[in-house]
């Protein structure tokens, strides 16, 4: 028997799928929140900022617990989800997507805010004085000028989504072939004494993470003018 026949690659594919979806969500909602935080003044801005940072400092078990309470089968949110999608959220791979979002969003939003704030306001003012709406200015001026910074953040965000363990195991569980992501599978392999599987999976995720970080660096170091 060769090595690959005994190794179940499902956790890797699941992890990649979860991380991809999470990255899409984080990029959309996160960029919006980062724009609001960087360009708007409103009451409660600091509170919003603190709330966004909170997942960064709370233990994963606490976050997982909140999610179970908020999105569990008896909660209003959980019931709404079940009514719309026809299945509960908790202990599905979709719950792992939520967990991954929670893991990567705070860092993405904080860094994206800094990137958006670094765009010279004079370009935005110029667009406004030419008559461009805020929406148009965002799409045609702000976003293109922030694109390089944001795309390197997107890569980081994807890499971070791959790595969530604590919240995932709390809300998605450890169901092989259904909700078992790579990091959970590694935990499982070590627990059950399957050292070879653990070693292979550890090497794989390390290689993927390294490749991602390396490519993120390539993006940031690209010569001026090529990304935008």
């Amino acid at each position, binding site marked *: 028997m060769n090595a690959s026949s005994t190794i179940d690659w499902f956790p890797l594919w699941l992890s990649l799928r979860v991380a991809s979806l999470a990255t899409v969500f984080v990029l959309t909602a996160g960029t919006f929140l980062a724009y609001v935080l960087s360009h708007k003044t409103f009451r409660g801005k600091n509170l919003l900022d603190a709330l966004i940072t909170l997942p960064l400092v709370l233990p994963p078990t606490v976050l997982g617990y909140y999610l179970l309470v908020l999105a569990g089968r008896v909660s209003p949110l959980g019931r709404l989800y079940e009514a719309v999608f026809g299945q509960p959220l908790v202990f599905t791979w979709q719950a792992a997507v939520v967990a991954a979002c929670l893991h990567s969003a705070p860092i993405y939003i904080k860094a994206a805010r800094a990137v958006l704030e670094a765009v010279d306001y004079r370009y935005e003012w110029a667009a406004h*004085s030419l008559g461009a709406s805020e929406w148009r200015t965002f799409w045609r001026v702000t976003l293109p000028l922030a694109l390089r910074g944001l795309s390197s953040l997107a890569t980081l965000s994807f890499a971070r989504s791959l790595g969530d363990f604590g919240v995932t195991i709390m809300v998605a569980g450890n169901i092989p072939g259904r909700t078992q992501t790579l990091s959970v599978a590694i935990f499982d392999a070590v627990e059950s004494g399957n050292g070879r599987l653990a070693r292979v999976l550890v090497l794989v995720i390390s290689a993927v993470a390294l490749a991602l970080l390396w490519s993120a660096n390539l993006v940031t170091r690209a010569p001026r003018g090529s990304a935008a």
Partner: protein
Amino acid sequence: MNRIEARLVKRLPAAQDSPAFELNVHLEAQPGITALFGPSGSGKTLTLNCIAGFMRPDKGRILVDDQIYFDAAAGVHVPPQQRRCGYIFQDHALFPHMTVRDNLRFAASVAGSKGRGLNQHRRLNELLETFELSDLAGRKPEQLSGGQKQRAALARILVTEPRILLLDEPTRGLDARLRESFYAVLRKTRDRLQVPILLVTHDLEECFELADSVCVMERGAFLQCGLRDSVFHKPASLEIARWLGIYNVAPAEIEALDPGRNTSRLRMLGYEIDGPYLPGHLLGDRGYFCVRQSEVTVSAPDNGKSHNQLVLNVVDRNPCPRGIHIAFEHDFAAVVSEAEYQPLRGHERLKLHIPARAVYFIAK
């Protein structure tokens, strides 16, 4: 005819690197170029930003034509997108990720009104042509020189057919030759657009070259506003005269006044100086004698003594663009050409001739 009328009050709280500041101005501008002239930190750019709508004044009202852009009492604040103010920023703010043509196209697609497709294409080409940008249309701003960027920025705002133009130190960082060509472009634009143009500058020569009217600004307030020549030839206060830097100023007293002959006599630094009649002043009034540096002629001292001449010690002499700048005691100065300077070389004291018509008096 477009005109601007703005009363602005804006307080900025003290920040780490700047003390508290209050802007309090009443500005009126007709079509033509009105220069906001003053040292940096006097509130010139803040005034522009309030008019453009980037900043919201605490109090006041901004009218362009009869349209209210801002009214604190009524709570009106038209967003900058709807004000149609063409704004030229200090560094031009051309979008760096777009070519020159795309920069113009961006403005055109927003302005929208003047048709699309072929019509728009023709109009952009016309503008590119006018500003000598046709060959550069495909370039990104970073591939342009300072003067080219400036023309592109001007072309971009003209696409939108602005109701007023706001220019924030547009020639900063340009050499003399490029300045001249920008002045020519701007004059052409003024004649073509017939809208009020506010020009922020701290460059005296630029004021002379371009401005139809001048508002002298310091510490958030207008010291004097009016037609250029009236401001420069009749500064309203000693402060402005000093600040314009083109005046020789000294304390003086009125010794004689003769409305019949339209003459007056001032006693200044122990000399008697004849000047034009000074309406509104009385014998014995104390104040300041002023004469523009460019009106003063200089000669080697001789023993003759006559009216309107004074002999002063030379403090310093330096080459300047128009010849030699000679600094005298009492902070007097004069500029002479190279040729005029030759016979003066080596003299420690020189004689200054002051034409009577150029004498100006500012009351204390």
